[in-house]
Every structure is written in C-alpha cells, then in structure tokens.
C-alpha cells in the first residue's frame, strides 16, 4: 500500500524526522490562510500516487500569493500524466502546500528490502533530485549501498559508511546518523516495503529536511497497523478495484476486453499471457483463490460485468481439492444469479472433471466448455474474431 506524500510526511513527523512545514488542501479556497501562516515562497505539490510529478507539471515553486493561487487552481483537479501513471493520467484531488527551503545540497536516500539476501538496504546518493536508476546507470560510484542484517539492525559502522560515503561534515554526519536511525526505526516498526526521500535536502543552515517522501507499507502487515490501514485513499484507486478489494477479491483492472476468472495467482497470470498469445487482450487479473467457491466466482462475475470494456469472459479453473463438479455448479449458479449474457469460455480441469463438464453443458447456459489450454486458446481466438 502506497502512502501519499503528505501522509508519509505525517508519519515522518510522528518519528521526529524533519520535513518542511506544510498543509494539505482539497479546495482552492483553503489556500489563503495557509499563505498567511506559512509565508512565501511556497511549493504546491499534486498529491497523486505516482512518481515524476515534477516533470508532469504537478509541482510548482511559487513566490507570490497570486502565483500560489494560479498554481493551486491549475493543479487541483488536473489529470496528471507522468511516466508512472499511464496515458490516462491520475486526477489530482488534493495538493500539499509547503514552505520553500534554502537549499544548499540535495541528496538521495532510500530504504528497501533485498528479498534474495533477506536484508534491509539503505541506498544513498550524492545526486539528490535525480532518479536513482539514472544515477546508477551514469555514475554508479556516486551511490552508496549499505546492507543491514535485520537481526542486528542498524549499527554505528553503517552510519559511518553513510556519512563518510556522502562526504558529510562531522556535524552533518551526526545529524544524518540521527535521521537515519529514526528512518530505520520507522521502516521496521511500520512494516515498510520501501521508503524513499528524494531529495533529502541540506539547507544553507546545515539542516536536513525530507523534501519528498515516498512510503510503501507491506499490505500483509496492515492487520497490526490499523492507523496505517486507515490511510488507504479511495480516490486513488480504480473504483472497481476498490470494490473488489472490499469484497475480498484479488482483482487488477487492465485495458483489454477479455475478462478472466482464475483460481490462483500464478495460473491467473499465465491465463492473461495465454489470452494475449491468442491475439486478444486480457481485461483484468482476477484470482478467486485456490478454493474457488461459488460465492467467489459469483463475486468475480459481478465485478467483470461492471467493467464496460469486457466483451467476453474466460474462466480457467483447476479443480484440486475442491472438485470440478462442485465448481461447475458454482459457475452455473453464479451465471444464473448475475444474469450473465456475455460469451463465456470455461476451461476446467482436475478432480471429477467429466461430471463438471456435464453440469456445465446441461446447464442451458451459453458456455463454451473446453478441456485443454490449447483448446482454450483456439476458442479465445474465435472470440476475438467475433468481436
């Protein structure tokens, strides 16, 4: 789960990590008292969950109240297109208005998890403000990577490697050590998957400040962080995805036309690939779980039917411990209940598959039943041509 910049900065504040003074507004009318309170210059920043907001026009430095008004007017409600949003862009529902700082130097700092080595890694670079991938490609020597074994945690020598690597003055090195200790604690205690500050600013007053903040929380940990779970922003999600999540489905909306219902994430991905290979485009990823109960399939149908782009449905279920005959009855029941009227290909395999196929065939529904994935591919191609 990604946090908005302003949410991440709130979290930083609770860990006493320095961030610029700022306020979030959702209406332009809220701006004027903030200018009075924070003074000028200010930075107006679109709050959408995507990187590259600056290049997309979502971040503006303003020197006067008029400029602040103009920037806020322009950004609030805009469809912000960045390298990470996709072509359609994301609607800006709120902006963060922050005090401008006197910047002496910009650094980069992030914490992440190395899944292969099971370590926490701190990455820092002398070139704040630049994407770390670009620095890694052009001047890798300007990046410092510090690996931390989670069983011993952050130690003095890690902080020395950081401070000497960034060529910080002794005073600034100490400030950085304090900052990184707090960040590490936040990272671990809040179950972060990723945390990025870019840039981490050194002000002309030799103070550090997290001018940007990206935080991703491990969704599996939210049960123990109700305060973080509450930060989930409904505005920022595809409404269908939000609905699916609320009813317990693992659903991701895509741009194609063939809706899929699959049991199991790996098989669901492979099914999307198969649709693509058959010349069609998957409309979604949908994993109804290994068990694939009829309730879950019914829920899946309802979500798919809400997607106006879907012109056909491919159900790919591998019946394991839950037998195919039970699954088939579930599909029929769900189809009847939802009044399904789109062409549906059902590929079903596994325990009791013959009985399952018989139930599907005899249901009277317009279902195309296939047994192998190769057959499914043929039917998918036909479905594509039909359209």
């Amino acid at each position, binding site marked *: 789960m990604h946090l908005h910049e302003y949410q991440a900065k709130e979290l930083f504040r609770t860990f006493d990590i320095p961030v610029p003074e700022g306020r979030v507004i959702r209406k332009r009318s809220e701006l004027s008292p903030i200018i009075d309170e924070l003074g000028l210059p200010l930075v107006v920043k679109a709050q959408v969950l995507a990187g590259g907001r600056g290049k997309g026009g979502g971040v503006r430095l303003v020197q006067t109240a008029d400029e602040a008004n103009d920037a806020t007017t322009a950004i609030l409600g805009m469809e912000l297109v960045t390298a990470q949003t996709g072509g359609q862009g994301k609607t800006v529902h709120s902006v963060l208005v922050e005090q401008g700082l006197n910047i002496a130097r910009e650094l980069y700092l992030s914490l992440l998890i190395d899944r292969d080595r099971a370590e926490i890694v701190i990455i820092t670079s002398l070139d704040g403000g630049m994407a770390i991938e670009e620095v890694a490609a052009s001047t890798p020597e300007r990046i410092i990577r510090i690996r931390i074994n989670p069983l011993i945690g952050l130690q003095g020598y890690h902080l020395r490697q950081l401070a000497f690597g960034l060529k910080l003055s002794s005073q600034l090195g100490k400030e950085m050590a304090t900052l990184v200790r707090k960040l590490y604690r936040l990272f671990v205690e809040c179950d972060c998957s990723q945390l990025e500050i870019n840039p981490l600013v050194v002000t002309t007053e030799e103070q550090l400040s997290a001018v940007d903040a990206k935080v991703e929380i491990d969704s599996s940990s939210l049960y123990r962080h109700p305060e973080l779970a509450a930060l989930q922003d409904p505005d920022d999600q595809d409404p269908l995805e939000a609905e699916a999540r609320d009813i317990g489905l693992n659903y991701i909306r895509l741009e194609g036309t063939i809706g899929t219902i699959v049991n199991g994430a*790996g098989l669901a991905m492979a099914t999307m690939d198969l649709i693509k290979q058959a010349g069609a485009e998957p409309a979604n990823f949908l994993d109804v779980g290994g068990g694939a109960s009829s309730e879950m399939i019914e829920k899946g149908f309802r979500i798919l039917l809400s997607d106006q782009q879907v012109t056909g449905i491919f159900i790919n279920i591998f019946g394991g411990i839950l037998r195919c005959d039970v699954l088939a009855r579930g599909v029929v029941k769900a189809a009847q209940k939802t009044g399904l009227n789109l062409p549906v290909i059902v590929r079903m395999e596994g325990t009791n598959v013959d009985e399952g196929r018989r139930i599907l065939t005899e249901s009277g529904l317009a279902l195309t039943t296939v047994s192998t994935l190769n057959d499914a591919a043929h039917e998918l191609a036909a479905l594509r041509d039909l359209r």
Partner: protein
Amino acid sequence: MSIFVNQNTRLLVQGITGREGRFHTSQCREYGSNVVAGVTPGKGGQSLDEVPVFNTVTEARTATRANASMILVPPAFAADAIMEAIDAGIELIVCITEGVPVMDMLRVKNYLALKPSRLIGPNCPGIITPGACKIGIMPGPIHTPGGPMGVVSRSGTLTYEVVHQLSQAGLGQTTCIGIGGDPIIGTNFIDCLQAFEADHETEGVVLVGEIGGNAEEEAAAWIQANMSKPVIGFIAGLTAPPGRRMGHAGAIVSNGMGTAAAKLAAFRAAEIEVCEHLGELGSLCTKAMAASRT
C-alpha cells in the same frame, strides 16, 4: 527416490484444530502421509481423528519423533510457529500460510540460516512425493509416482496444471515443490535444483517461475554452471502491468526489475528449454526427456 520427503516422513501439523488444519490434515492422511501429531496451544491432550494434539512443538516432537511440520496458522502467528518448529529441531517445515508480513520473514529467514532446519514457503501449496508423502494443500490424485520429473514452482494451481500435464503425458514425478509466492521464502529454486540434481530418480526438472525478484535469473545461472539434467522452464506474467502485485506478494515488476522477459532471456542464455505456451508444457517435456535419453 525423491527429495526432502518420503515414506519415512513423520508429519506434525501446527494449527491442526483450525478449519484449514483439520481439513488438510485429513486430506494428507487420506493420501497416505504419516501424520503423527498436531499442535494447538491449549488443546494439548486432545486428539483429532486419532492424531494426538500437543500444546507445543517440542512436546509433540519428544512424544512422537515428528521430523516434519505443516503450518496452517493465521498469518499473525506464522513466524512464531516457524521459529518454534526450528527450535524444536524439526527438519522440514512447510508453511502454507499466506499473508505473512515481510518483516517477520526477514527475521525468520536469517534465523533459519543459523539452524539446520529447512523451511518451504510460506504462501505455498507444499511439497509432495507422489505415492509416499504429501505435505500441503495440493490435490493428490493428479500426481503420478515414480519419476522421472521433478517440479519446482513459485505458484499453486499453476503447479497443479503443470503436474497434470506431466501425468497426462505419461511423465511421473519424483517430488513436486511449491516454494511459495512471497518475496522472502525459506527454500529457493537453487536449493531444490541442487537436490534434484543429486537425486538419482529425477531425470529432468520443470521450473515454474513468475515475475518479481530475480530468483529465476539466479537459478538459470546455477543451472548453467551445475546442472547435468534437462530443465524445462516456464514464466508466468508476460502481460503483467509494472508496479502491481499480481496476487502473490512477491509477483511484482518494480523499477523495470523482475520482468518475465528478463527471466526468459536468462533461461535462454542458460540454454534452458523454454516453454512459451503453457498448453504445450506436457508435450515439450516429453520431447525434452526423449532427447536427453538418446
């Protein structure tokens, strides 16, 4: 022959009295697994379908000489259950539970490195040596005992699909392992490949990967350097959009890393037989195994 589990496996189930635990214990027993004990704190002294239940893993192990454990407890208790099994000296720990926080697994994985136990999972279907022992939630009947194929996969139902095709093609399995779809897992591809390479009955291996991380790339490098047996590789997630977790916590392309394309390229560079179309996996394996035998 087989790897990690066989007819001498004495299975303990942590969380045996839960709904899932009870159901899958009965399924494993039905398949023929030797379930010798269960653990549910506070239910020690009871028994469930003749399986004695204990309060702690240490008690259970002392009383029954269990050497493997299947964990079916809620995610909040999974790390604790795994470490309890490690400390009790359980040799093989199979954690089925999905949704274990990564921070918990970071600690568990490093703790594991201090100890002799092997962990499979979490977030995995388990491990099965057809005809001998099933530890997990996979459907037993799709499997065929006797080899020649080993199967290792990050996925659940996708593995069943693969196994089913193998069985249909007349290719039995020595052992099939779902290593789990989480970012941090106990046993990785290389551990399994190493064991398959050493197992006399295994003549070839199907490796089923997916997007996220670079376990497949590392496996490919290892295969090229060390593996004498043919490996058939499949990767799920060619069409997965970047930045999204595809069901599995570990299945995500981030910052251009972990793409299916990169993994397939690594497979090809390592001269691994790549299965492009999942529907053709069975026939591809038949061909590959025939070629390797000549």
